[in-house]
């Protein structure tokens, strides 16, 4: 019986020690649901605003497609990964385009709500985004700085005012 009791004690000690050290929760961090709001960090300058804008757009597009933001980010990394993604999830290019446009529009709303984008800029920006082709939309999600540069062009004579509306 001593041997059996010793075995039970050794087993209990090991299992309890590993549980106490976090053994039951050692798993990859769970990614956030893209449909939920994500906190905006205070952007300092155009580059950081563009980055926050891209992340928000990714969230919006991923929410529309029912995938994680991270899956979509990897899918948009190269044309090959995009093709694999659309094949795997059975998504048409038109659906992807709609989702990305929806994502970009959500980014504008998020930026507006976070006080990072003035409503005077947000309105024409939304109009631009609604008409944007898929390839260009993907480029914008990759690097929203391009979008903000294009916005300057779109605003034409008023572009000088842009810097005043950006934080």
């Amino acid at each position, binding site marked *: *019986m*001593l*041997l*059996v009791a*010793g*075995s*039970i004690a*050794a*087993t*209990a000690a*090991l*299992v309890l020690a*590993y*549980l106490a*050290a*976090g*053994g*039951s929760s*050692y*798993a*990859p*961090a*769970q*990614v*956030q649901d893209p449909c939920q709001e994500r906190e905006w960090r205070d952007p300092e300058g155009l*580059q950081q605003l*563009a*980055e926050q804008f*891209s*992340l928000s757009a*990714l969230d919006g597009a991923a929410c529309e497609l029912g995938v*994680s*933001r*991270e*899956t979509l*980010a*990897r899918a948009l*990394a*190269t044309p090959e*990964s995009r093709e694999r993604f659309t094949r795997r999830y059975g998504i048409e290019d038109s659906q992807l385009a709609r989702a990305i446009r929806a994502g970009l529009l959500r980014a504008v709303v998020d930026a507006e709500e976070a006080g990072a984008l003035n409503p005077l800029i947000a309105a024409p920006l939304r109009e631009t985004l609604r008409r944007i082709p898929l390839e260009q939309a993907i480029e914008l999600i*990759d*690097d*929203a*700085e391009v979008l903000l540069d294009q916005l300057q062009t779109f605003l034409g004579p008023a572009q000088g005012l842009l810097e005043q509306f950006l934080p």
Partner: protein
Amino acid sequence: MTVASRPRVAALALAVGLVLADSSIVVLALPEIYRELDTSVAGVTWVLISFNLVMALVAVPAAHLARRFGPGRTGAVGLAVFAGASLACGLSAELGTLIAARCVQALGGAAAVTAALELLPAATGSERRAVALWAAAGATGAALGPAVGGLLTELVSWQSIFLFQVPVAIVAGAPILAIARHEAETGILAAELRSTGRPHLLANLALAMVSAAIAAALFLLVLLLIEGWRLTPIGAAVVVSVMPLAAFFGSRIGPQVAGTRARAAAGAILVSGGLGGLALLPKAEVALTLPPQLLIGVGLSLVLSALTETALAGRAPQAIHGGWTISARHAGVVIGLLAVTPIFTADIAEQRRDAIDAGTAVVLDSPVSPLLKLELAQRIEDQLDDERGRVPTIGPAFEPLPDDPEERGEVVQLRDELQEQLNRGATHAFSPSFGLGALIGLLALIPIGLARRVDL
């Protein structure tokens, strides 16, 4: 045991150890075979399953053959078949051929192992000593198998595991061949013993369940070390050698402190406890696998020898009842592998996805520049493609590191955080399968407990 009989005893023990090592010797080579023969995890598992399945099916018929045609002759022919099939395994270039050769290996091996049990009492001068030696040789072989296989895979190749067995089988077979000649000359086959009873169902059932748990432990731990944590086969061999060392320790102390039932119960508890520890690893660190391995090693030596002795005690012919224990052990290994493989393969695919998602989130939320993020995302995607569904090593995707010291620091931190997520995913993927192994080991306490009152 006389001085003259020592080489014969050594040869018989070597034959038993060699054959029973084969149920686990390829475990560390599986990742290598998996890559070289371009198969799936489920496919490569059959290199293990086929051998154990055939052993389970033919052990008892092989024991009858040994009784009918003589253990010397059966043992010699069995070892010759085993050696020939080992050569065929070593020369296999396709998974199908390898699996077929493994089946033939098991046919020969079953004949050799059961014949050895019939020959050992005469060679050792005591039936009890013969059973203890036979059980110990089998347990030692099974425990040493993965470490030897890992060393050979790393130093030479996976094929060398099988080619190495050919000369060993010939060395073990030479004294057995002399017995076969003696049988042919004298016409004396097996000792005429009256059959005493049916197989010990409860002991054999417990043996099968414990073997399932041990097989799950070995198979999963090796895959975790090599495929999950990216150790080399030789590194993994060193790590898993803790189990045979602990088993050796357990075999020395066990019989001195308790009877067979207490040893069996304590062993099953320790094996389950060790598997429970592996299911609850709090970090992806090799050192943390050592305490669970100690428990499993000591436990397996206690429970396998105790249950084998119980199954054979007072029963004759020994070869037939020994055949039943071999059959139970290998059936248990098959059940263990079949039970954990689908859970494990599904979990690793899911955890890999979760880990990659978590890692991508780290990249997206990191302070590195968007253009660098995009570049890293592309490199990580390429790295994942190269790894063909395995848990990837993410380091190469971050090479070369940026020149700017600040950016370099950020990228290194990012790489480490991403690898941590992958390690978490790899480790967590094995938890449910280790947990299932622990449960099977615990359930073995039921037949062990019942055997206390009822002796079938």
